[in-house]
């Protein structure tokens, strides 16, 4: 974090401390509040391992995995959204744009509709992982295909990338349409609910795998601050400034695909965070990606955990899909931020 030039470092530090404190508070609330009311002392003794069986199970088997999955998914979506917006120089870019989410959705839809027969052949322990694995494979397949298409003579064309993503999304939509058509009533409902996302499927195995996948990708994405800054003056100028543009583009695409693929496989497609968290970060902390990246990650976590907290507690014992809450909470917050900042600064990037 050297050379944070142009930022009053003390002010920046304060903003980060405030952001971190808010996220920490939401994370604590995620552990402390749920449909089953537990006192803080029960929660803490459950964490420390000397609580009674029931509260321990609630905290360690239900809330803690959700918390960690929420952190992983929020970080993954926000960082890859930030990196893709940066590298494509397109403020509307999000992981859905280059077909990442579309691929995962095709994989998931195929498993939900066609996987029943296959699932019966598998041992019971493996069956729950069939869907996340095929969602991830679908994502990997589609992303590599999109990048193949947009690579010509050693360079990746951003315009082709976006167009290929649009085409792939259309094809994915059609494939999902076919799945919807041949699905029965139960499969259709499963599919519909999957597309709205949920952290409810979190168990420790899933959390461990997702955290491992996401943290590798996120750690690598978080080092790309200078590279993303340089993309803002164009690819040629970035090369003139010492950036290996081709390699950086490939890495960002690969890392985003891994992060979003992992997140989507575990929690379904959760929209809006990848699009909006980086914008919020820029409005709060300025344009320098060295700061925007970590701030996006924090905002992504905060938004996702806050949304999960809301859906878990709003109409217990039922639980609405989290996708509804990310937009309902994130949308107005983003608008407020946008309007207050616009007053202060004139134009908004």
């Amino acid at each position, binding site marked *: 974090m050297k050379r944070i030039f142009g930022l009053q470092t003390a002010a920046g530090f304060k903003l980060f401390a405030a952001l971190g404190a808010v996220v920490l508070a939401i994370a604590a609330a995620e552990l402390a509040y749920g449909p089953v009311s537990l006192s803080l002392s029960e929660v803490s003794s459950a964490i420390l391992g000397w609580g009674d069986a*029931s509260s321990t199970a609630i905290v360690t088997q239900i809330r803690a995995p959700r918390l960690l999955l929420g952190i992983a998914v929020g970080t993954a979506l926000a960082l890859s959204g930030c990196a893709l917006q940066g590298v494509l120089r397109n403020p509307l870019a999000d992981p859905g744009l280059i077909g990442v989410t579309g691929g995962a959705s095709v994989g998931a839809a195929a498993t939900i509709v066609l996987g029943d027969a296959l699932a019966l052949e598998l041992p019971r322990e493996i069956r729950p992982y069939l869907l996340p694995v095929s969602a991830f494979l679908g994502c990997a397949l589609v992303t590599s295909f999109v990048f193949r298409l947009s690579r010509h003579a050693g360079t990746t064309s951003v315009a082709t990338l976006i167009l290929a993503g649009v085409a792939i999304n259309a094809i994915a939509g059609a494939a999902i349409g076919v799945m919807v058509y041949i699905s029965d009533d139960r499969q259709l409902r499963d599919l519909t609910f999957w597309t709205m996302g949920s952290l409810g*499927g979190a168990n420790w195995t899933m959390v461990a795998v997702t955290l491992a996948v996401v943290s590798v990708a996120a750690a690598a994405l978080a080092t790309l601050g200078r590279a993303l800054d340089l993309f803002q003056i164009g690819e040629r100028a970035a090369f003139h400034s010492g950036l290996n543009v081709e390699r950086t583009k490939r890495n960002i695409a690969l890392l985003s695909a891994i992060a979003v693929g992992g997140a989507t496989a575990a929690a379904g497609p959760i929209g809006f965070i990848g699009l909006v968290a980086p914008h919020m970060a820029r409005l709060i902390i300025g344009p320098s990606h060295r700061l925007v990246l970590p701030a996006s990650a924090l905002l992504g976590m905060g938004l996702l955990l806050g949304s999960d907290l809301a859906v878990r507690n709003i109409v217990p*014992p039922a639980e609405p899909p989290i996708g509804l809450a990310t937009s309902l909470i994130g949308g107005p917050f983003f608008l407020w931020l946008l309007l207050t900042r616009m007053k202060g600064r004139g134009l908004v990037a």
Partner: protein
Amino acid sequence: MKLIVPTALVAVLMSTVSLSETFPQRIVSAGGDLTEIVYALGAEDRLIGFDVTSNYPPSARDKEQIGYVRRISAEGVLALGPDLVLGAHDMGPPAAVDQLRAAGVRVELAPRGDSAKGIPEKVRFVGQLLGLTDKARQLASQIKADLSREAARAASKQPKPRVIFVLALGEGEPMVAGVGSSAAKIIELAGGTNAVTQFKGYKPMSREAILAAQPEVLLMMDSAVGRYGGIDKILERPELALTPAGQTRRYVSMDGMLLLGFGPRTPLAIEQLGEALRQ
């Protein structure tokens, strides 16, 4: 033991301890058919929560609502403090089922039962869990007897009338029940034959294909008839008006859960539908 214990858990402890029985007293039911069975067994006071498909008897709607059976929230259900979660065979997601079990809640998934044979099986299954084995056996054999009586009556009318079940109409093509759907099964049990043989499950069917299928009776759910402006409006639609059903205005409209629930009321549903078909 901690001093502060959540009220729900207190309730669990008290009910199990004071009644000193091994049979569950606080039951969450995820499946409309299972809920109806519990009611039919007279154990409704032990039910504390239901899923969205549990809408009969009407008093069931007053209890806690746990959402859709394939997307239950483990902690939401736990908050009710149940000692038994009675689930349809496809209750999910799997992680939530595992979490419920990890928290010490008994979860039992009913056998799949969308056939005439499956209903008595489900009844006996629920009865066993609730400690009402005798009552369940009685109910099961009653259902069996009713079903075979209806089967005999259904066989009496030949040829079987061709029935089309329309699930939804909407703007596009009507959504119609195909081969193997629960509607097709009930139609056959009631002595009709499903006019649609081209596809499985519920699918949109083109207007020409509906005309070609030549249905003699239109079958719909009450709620759908209401939603699309009453039976007269529906029978005026060209794809139905020109069929034998439209021209003779032969239609049956029934409550959805009664018709398709495959619960204790299914013999009644078969009887009602059968009578309409034999007219």
